């Protein structure tokens, strides 16, 4: 005897509003908020340093007041020549802000350009483009920059353009692989079937489809990378030179007094760098997760 059981009483369920422990969105909100906070204080610092208000003169040396610990008068204390570290940090943003943007734009635009061309026409262009890119790629980056510095004795702007150039191969190969995958996707074939011209397809679909994540990640990563590269160059003595302050050469300046216990000299700029790059990473992460939505469960 088979019997089917059914629930007799049934709540009259009209309409549901149910609190839900939001998972993914909390993480995105936090990271984008933190990232935007970081970007905002970068702009504030950049504004202050360009207009030159609010802060003491970062270049002003007074030998009497060397190695002061942080006090009200010198927010972050003074460095090995008695200059105020806080104002130097504010002025230091100028050293990597625009160069950072330059390096990002150079690496992204050319990376995109080469990536798409070699992705779409692998036979003709890919070999030639990637031949030159491999040349740039195989010389260690710091040696490549050192040679440039020796040749032209350049300003930080030119150095950062070459940093951008040296990271083109990475983006180009990434875009190339993406384009190859996207190329034979149904949507692109359908577009081609509709008679859209090749360039229209490239610009509208490919760039938009493959670019959103790359642009976002590239922008935030690139900015962080340019700060770190500048720090390494300053450690080797070939980065931004002394009178003009930059975060990199302040950390490098602190290294000589590191083992004598005065670690805060290089810890404060390194901390600021850490804070900024963390913000940029999280910003990139959050935006990235919003743009290409999560896989619907």
């Amino acid at each position, binding site marked *: 005897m088979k019997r089917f059981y059914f629930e007799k009483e049934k709540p009259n369920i009209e309409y549901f509003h149910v609190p839900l422990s939001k998972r993914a969105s909390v993480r995105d909100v936090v990271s984008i908020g933190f990232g935007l906070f970081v970007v905002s204080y970068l702009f504030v610092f950049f504004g202050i340093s360009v207009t030159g208000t609010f802060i003491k003169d970062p270049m*002003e*040396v007074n*030998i009497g007041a*060397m190695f002061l610990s942080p006090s009200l008068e010198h927010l972050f204390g003074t460095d*090995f*020549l008695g200059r105020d570290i806080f104002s130097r940090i504010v002025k230091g943003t100028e050293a990597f802000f625009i160069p950072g943007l330059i390096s990002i734009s150079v690496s992204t635009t050319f990376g995109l350009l080469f990536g798409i061309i070699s992705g779409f026409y692998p036979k003709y262009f890919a070999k030639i483009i990637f031949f030159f890119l491999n040349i740039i790629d195989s010389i260690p980056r710091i040696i490549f920059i050192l040679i440039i*510095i*020796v040749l032209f*004795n350049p300003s930080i702007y030119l150095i950062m353009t070459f940093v951008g150039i040296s990271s083109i191969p990475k983006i180009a190969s990434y875009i190339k692989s993406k384009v190859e995958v996207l190329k034979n996707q149904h949507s692109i074939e359908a577009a081609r079937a509709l008679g859209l011209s090749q360039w229209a397809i490239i610009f509208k679909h490919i760039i938009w489809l493959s670019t959103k994540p790359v642009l976002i990640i590239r922008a935030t990563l690139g900015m962080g990378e340019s700060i770190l590269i500048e720090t390494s160059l300053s*450690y*080797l*003595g*070939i980065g931004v*030179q*002394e*009178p003009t302050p930059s975060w990199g050469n302040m950390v490098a*300046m602190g*290294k*000589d*007094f*590191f*083992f*004598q216990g005065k670690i805060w000299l290089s810890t404060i700029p390194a901390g600021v760098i850490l804070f900024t790059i963390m913000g940029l990473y999280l910003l990139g992460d959050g935006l990235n997760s919003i743009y290409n939505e999560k896989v619907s469960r």
Partner: protein
Amino acid sequence: MRYKGIIALLTIIFVFTLPIAVCAQSKGGTLIYGEYGAPIRLVPILANDSISVRLIELIYGSLVFYDTNGEVFGDLAERWEVSKDLKTVTFYLRKNVSWHPVPGENHRQEFTAADVIKTFEIMMHPNTVTSLQSRYNFISGVQKLDTYTVVFTLKKPVLNVLGRFSFKILPSFLLTKISYLRGDEDLLLYKHPVGTGPFIFISQEGSSAEVVLRANEQYHLGTPYIEKIIMRPFADQNIITQTLLYGGIDLQVRVPPRDISEIQGDAQFELAPYSTLSYSFFGYNLRNPVLAIREVREAISYAINRQEMLNSFFEGRGQIISGPFAPGSWAYNLDVKPLPFSPSEANRLLDRAGFTERTKDGIRARGSYKLEFDMVVPISKENETTKRVILSFQNYLKAVGIKINIKWLEWKTWTENVFMKHDFDIIYADWLFDDSFDISSLFHSREIGPGRNNFGAYKNPEVDALLDESRATLDIEKKRTIYKKLHEILATEAPYTYLWTLTNYAAYNRTLRRVEIHPTRFFTYIKNWYILEEEPKQ
């Protein structure tokens, strides 16, 4: 375990009472010493960087050598005679001296006069790439009397000529088919230096060239106590000091000024000051019309506070100088006082020179000439003190109304700009002297031109005359008065702003005993250093 807390006073007493060697000198032990940077080339004629010179001192021998207070000792030469007319010098060489073993052969070659002659010929050959030729151009030639005597004939008589014969001797049997050295020949000597010195070269393996030497048991002046020496190159000066403090190395050749107080505070290490005959200065390019005015240069010297810089950057370990000579040497004129720090005097001088108008950002000007100079400085990884000096210099002069733009150039570009193209206004550098204090190459008018040392194009006939006279005279007193006169003139003329002479400090582990450091060649007395194994650890 290293205890930091021991009072500095105790160590100071310890340093000055040179410990009498209580326990017997024990043979053996390894000395590891650290250098900042790597030796370029272990061949005496071609190498002139200080790291290579120190290693060459260990490997090669020379005819004679002079010690700290100018007295001459015989190394490869047993006896020597200087002819009455000071024209010829004969050396009687030691008999039983043998070269180091050449890799592959086990018997050791004999040291003969042929080696001395071959070395001299190569050194003086026109297309040998070396900077030593200018120091030995007073010798006209050399002959071999027999296998163990050598005669040098001089062009003109020279005061205390013996001190000059301290150049190193190369093995002739390895240079048979070579008549001059350019540096790119494929020579066994480059790969495995062979000399007659107290230590034999074993290996220079590795990219950063750790050099390993072992004691030469058949060394003619007595076998050294230390059994093995290892030179470890470093790429970061802070790391050298830390490695010394933690026992990684036993000797640090030159301690950066900022670490001296830390080493002094530690009982396990000793600081040995050795003042190399060198001094630091700001050099001016007199081709620039503004800098050609004497008052401007003098004003600059008044405007900077040298004592404050010395105290705060080098912890006062040095001496302010007033002329182009090292204070320790006999040529230094003590009654010429260094210019005091008085910005008001500097301003007065500048006003007298006519630079009264002020541009809007505070720079003094007179008509079209502005007191704005380019300072050219070489980039290097370890230039913390240079940065501090330059930036405070820039700051001092800004107070007086002189603007300094600092241009940073990579090392080779800097040398080319300064010595070849003369495209600079002010430079910050220092000169290193050997015993002869011959400053003619710095200030003599014939030394102006690309590649010469008188980069500032300083021309003063009176100084030229005095310099030529000083080279010609023979007796020491006459030379001393001439140098004193030179000192006065150059102090007032001020082609340079003379800063100071720094006392270099070497730091070594307490287990190293009877350490005596030669001011310029460092390891001359290496053979009587010894390592005390049973030093009880505090």
